[in-house]
Every structure is written in C-alpha cells, then in structure tokens.
C-alpha cells in the first residue's frame, strides 16, 4: 500500500513538473496567460469602478463598501479568475479525445483524469507564484484593504476549487467520445463560471434571491468567496461554506464524470490510431 502510494506520488510529481516545464517552454504564451490578460481585465474593471464611484451618493458607499474595497476586488478578481478556470488544459483534454491522441494515455498504466490533473496543478502553481506578485504589489502600493494573513487559507480554497474545475473539464472532454466538436461547451462552461463565480461583479451586489442561490452553489468558491474573504467582505463562515459547496459539487461532478467516461470508452472508436 505504502509502495503504491509512493509510486503514485512520484508519478504525479513528475507530471506536475511536466506541466511546469512545458508551459515555461512557451514563454510568450505563459506571459500573456499569467500577466497580460489579467492586467488588461484589471484595467477595465478599475476604470469601471472609478466611473461608478464618481456618481455615488454622499455616503461614498455601494452595498456597504467604499471605493477602495471595490478597487481591491477589481485588482484581485481577474488574477484569481485566471487560476480558478481551465481554458488551456481543457482544450488539450478535449483535443486528446476528439483526435484520438488519448490512445497513448489509454495504453499506459495511468488515468486520463490523473494525467491532466497533475499537469494542471503544476501549471497553476507556477502561474500563481508569478502572477500573484502583481495584485500583491498593487494592493501594497495603493494601500488597498486586503487581509494578507488570510491569503494562505484563501489559496487552499482555490486549489480545492481547481479539483472541481478539473472534474468539470474532464466531463466536457468525455463529450468528445460522443460528439465531434466540443469547443463550444468549453466556451459556455467558462463564461458561465465567470458569471456564476463573481469574477465580473461581486455576488453580494446582485439581487438578494440570485445572490443567495449563487452562494449556495460551488461556483462562487473559485473567485468570489476567497476574494470576499481576503478583502473583508466575508468572514471564516463564508470560507467554510465555500469548502462545503465545493465538496458536494465534487460528489455530483464525480458521479457524472464516472458515468460519462465509462460509457464513452465503450463507444470509443480509437480514431487516429
């Protein structure tokens, strides 16, 4: 049992390292993905909140929070959003199934889920290490309201959320067993996650009924919950609720992915072999 676990650990560390090495190989893609895209999103959101606050009433508050609180949200949300979403690896997973390159994985003693999860985590670690320097520097420079001591707990929640995001990517990729083109599902899923996760607008600003529904779903745990936690919009209770929501989300997604995978490999024709 111990030997099996050691082998599992070694194998997955090696795959995580592959994720890091492969992505650092394509420097410009990495820089655009980790820095340029989120910085552009930060620019748009910051300008938007500055404009909104010019028209605010005498209290200077929206939803009980001041301008700096929203600027902190705007500076962190796109970076957390990049970490808590899977465009690149999901596209690669879909392509593997649709093109038949998955044959290489299916004939080796490792699972498709594990193979990509380790690489995704490796990539997310390296992205986090590099890209988080930007919102931290911004927050320190402009003295934005951020509870830095809460960052480790918030990142643990984000890593846990990546498990759910990866399981959803796995579900989308299994659709490749049944359909020839699956790209539109990735787009649909990721745009929904951006909206449901509170990356564009803080969930507490949405109509009450909608915000309570969104907070009871696991998708808010990728961006809104950790961000509300580190910017002081939410407390430990909100964080624990985030962990709980991800857990039941994982159970549901796990069951669905198990069913789709097993049926899919039975239908699979091994295209491209």
């Amino acid at each position: 049992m111990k030997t099996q676990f050691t082998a599992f650990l070694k194998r997955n560390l090696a795959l995580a390292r592959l994720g890091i090495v492969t992505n650092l190989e394509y420097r410009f893609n990495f820089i655009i993905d980790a820095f340029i895209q989120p910085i552009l999103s930060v620019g748009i959101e910051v300008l938007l909140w500055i404009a909104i606050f010019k028209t605010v009433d005498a209290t200077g508050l929206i939803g009980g929070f001041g301008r700096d609180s929203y600027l902190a949200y705007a500076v962190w949300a796109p970076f957390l959003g990049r970490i808590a979403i899977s465009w690149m690896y999901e596209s690669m997973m879909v392509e593997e199934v649709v093109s038949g390159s998955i044959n290489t994985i299916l004939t080796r003693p490792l699972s498709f889920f594990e193979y990509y999860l380790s690489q995704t985590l490796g990539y997310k670690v390296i992205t986090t290490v590099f890209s988080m320097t930007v919102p931290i520097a911004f927050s320190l420079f402009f003295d934005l309201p951020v509870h830095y001591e809460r960052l480790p707990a918030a990142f643990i929640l984000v890593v846990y959320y990546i498990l759910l995001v990866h399981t959803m990517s796995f579900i989308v990729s299994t659709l490749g067993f049944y359909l020839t083109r699956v790209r539109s599902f990735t787009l649909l899923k990721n745009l929904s996650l951006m909206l449901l996760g509170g990356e564009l607008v803080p969930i507490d600003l949405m109509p009450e009924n909608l915000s309570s529904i969104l907070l009871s779903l696991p998708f808010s745990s990728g961006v809104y919950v950790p961000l509300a936690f580190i910017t002081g919009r939410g407390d430990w209770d909100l964080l624990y609720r985030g962990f709980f929501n991800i857990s039941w989300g994982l159970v549901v997604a796990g069951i669905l992915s198990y069913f789709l995978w097993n049926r899919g490999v039975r239908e699979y024709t091994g295209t491209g072999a």
Partner: protein
Amino acid sequence: MKYAIEAKNLGRVYKTYSKKEGIINSLKGFYNRKYTEKVALKNANLKIEAGKIVGLVGSNGAGKTTLLKILSGLIHPSTGTANVLGYEPWKRDNEFLKQISILLGQKNQLWWDITPLDSYSLLTKIYDLDPVRAKKRVMDLANLLQCEQVLDTQLRRLSLGERMKMEIIGSLLHEPKVLFLDEPTIGLDIVAQNSIRNFLEKYVKEFQPAIILTSHYMDDIAQLADQLLLISQGEIVYDGNVEHFMQTTDLKKKLIYRLKNSTEEKEIVFSSQELTQVLSDLAKAGEVVDLKVEEVDFEDAIHRFLEAESGTR
C-alpha cells in the same frame, strides 16, 4: 500450449452518420440523423506464441488497425473474446498495461517539448520502474539503435527517423511482453527502415516478446514475420507463415512481354503448370518482340491475393 495472445470470433461494428450532399440534407440531418453500421472486423480467430512476430497485412480499411486496437485494449469488441497475457484487454487492468506496448508510427507517444531522456524519466515513474535499471536499458537500446547522440535533444527538433528510434526505446523501456507495432517504418528512408528491422529482429531473439506488426512495406513483413495474417474486408483470410504462403499461392510467375508496334509492356501472372497454355495464348496474340519471365515477389503475391479475396466477397 499457452499463447500470449488468443482471440475467438472477435468482431467490431462501427456506427457512422451518413449524410447526402447539399444544404437541404444538412438541414434534414440537423434533426433527423441517419446512421449506418459498418462491419470493421468479423469472426477473427488467432493464436500467437511468445517470441513470435506476426505480420498483419491488409489494404486500407481492411480491419487490421481495429484488430490491433481491440487487442491492445483501446476499444471494446462488439462480439467475441480475447485473452492477452491472461487479461481481457479492454478492461485495461494496470498490470496488463504494464506488460504491453503499442507503437503507432504516425503518432508521437513521447512528449514533444522535452528531451527523450526526460520522457524516459517520466515513463520510468509512470511504469514504476527501477530508475537505475531503466537508465541502463535506455543506454543499451540507444546503443543498439545507434542514436545515443540525440537522447538529450528535444523531440520536436529530431528527424523522423531519429524520432521513431526514440519512440521505439520508449515503447520498450518497461520490457513489454506483448508489442503492437502499427507502421513502425512509415515515412522512413531505406537506411532507417533497415536499421529498425535489424534492431527488431535482434530484440525479439533476445527478449522473446510477442509482436503484432502492421506495415504497408512488405519488406518489413518478409524480413521479420514468423507468422502471416492476411485480413480482407474485416475477415482473416490467411493464417500461416511467409514461406508457406509463397509455396501455396497459385500466383507464382510473371510473364512480361511487348508486342511489335507497341511501346507498352504487358504482364500475365500464372502458375507453373499453366506455362504451356500461357505461351500458346501469347503466340496467338501477335508478334512478341520482348519477353521475360520473373518470379512473383512477396509484395506482388500479397496484393494479388488480397485483390482476389476482395473480389470474391
């Protein structure tokens, strides 16, 4: 006798979407799709011993890759049973996967962005191998294939021949007992083809794996195969060895001739006992100005055999 690979009545039917041409039919297909069934493999029976190379030959779409995919566990059969090293392949038990390897000549199986040595290190962990032993094996195999100098160059920077050698090392790293080789020499020059054939010949003698080899180059089959499986329209139509095939096939000689006032060379393939009749017919055809008789080679014999087989179905 215990066989490394045994299959009984294996069959596979693919369901494909069929659509007639035109926009109207595309619109119809949007809500009402018509599917047709195609039999890719039918009642395939085979037995393969350890230490033997089996040449699997057939024209495109004959069913050879489907058979390979079922036996390597990639796809499920529609009918029949198979036993590879005591396992049902499509259950993809990890212990089974650790003992087989599949090499697809038209696909990279090593990682494109890293060096072969890095790929082998990753494979060592995936197959849970002893790192020291695995490293030694890489060097031994690289020595046999004479490619030590490119082991630390990124895969994407290697030539096709070098890449194929790297793929072969990767597929043999975990000492598989069964090896599926799908077009291992495709696109390679003659020198690289020979080098890979010679390597495989030596390797099988030394390590005794069971190998199923498909190739469109009949020289691969003629030089390497102990057993020959000919497959046509999803059915195995010949199971024997190369010598037996050449002895029993009717198509043994080829007469090439040219008639007066013609620039075109024509040929007649016939069996030895038909020689008198063929010459008599030829004399009636006109004045022959050029004539030679050749033995039909293996490739020719295979093509004619498969052509005849597909014509009878």
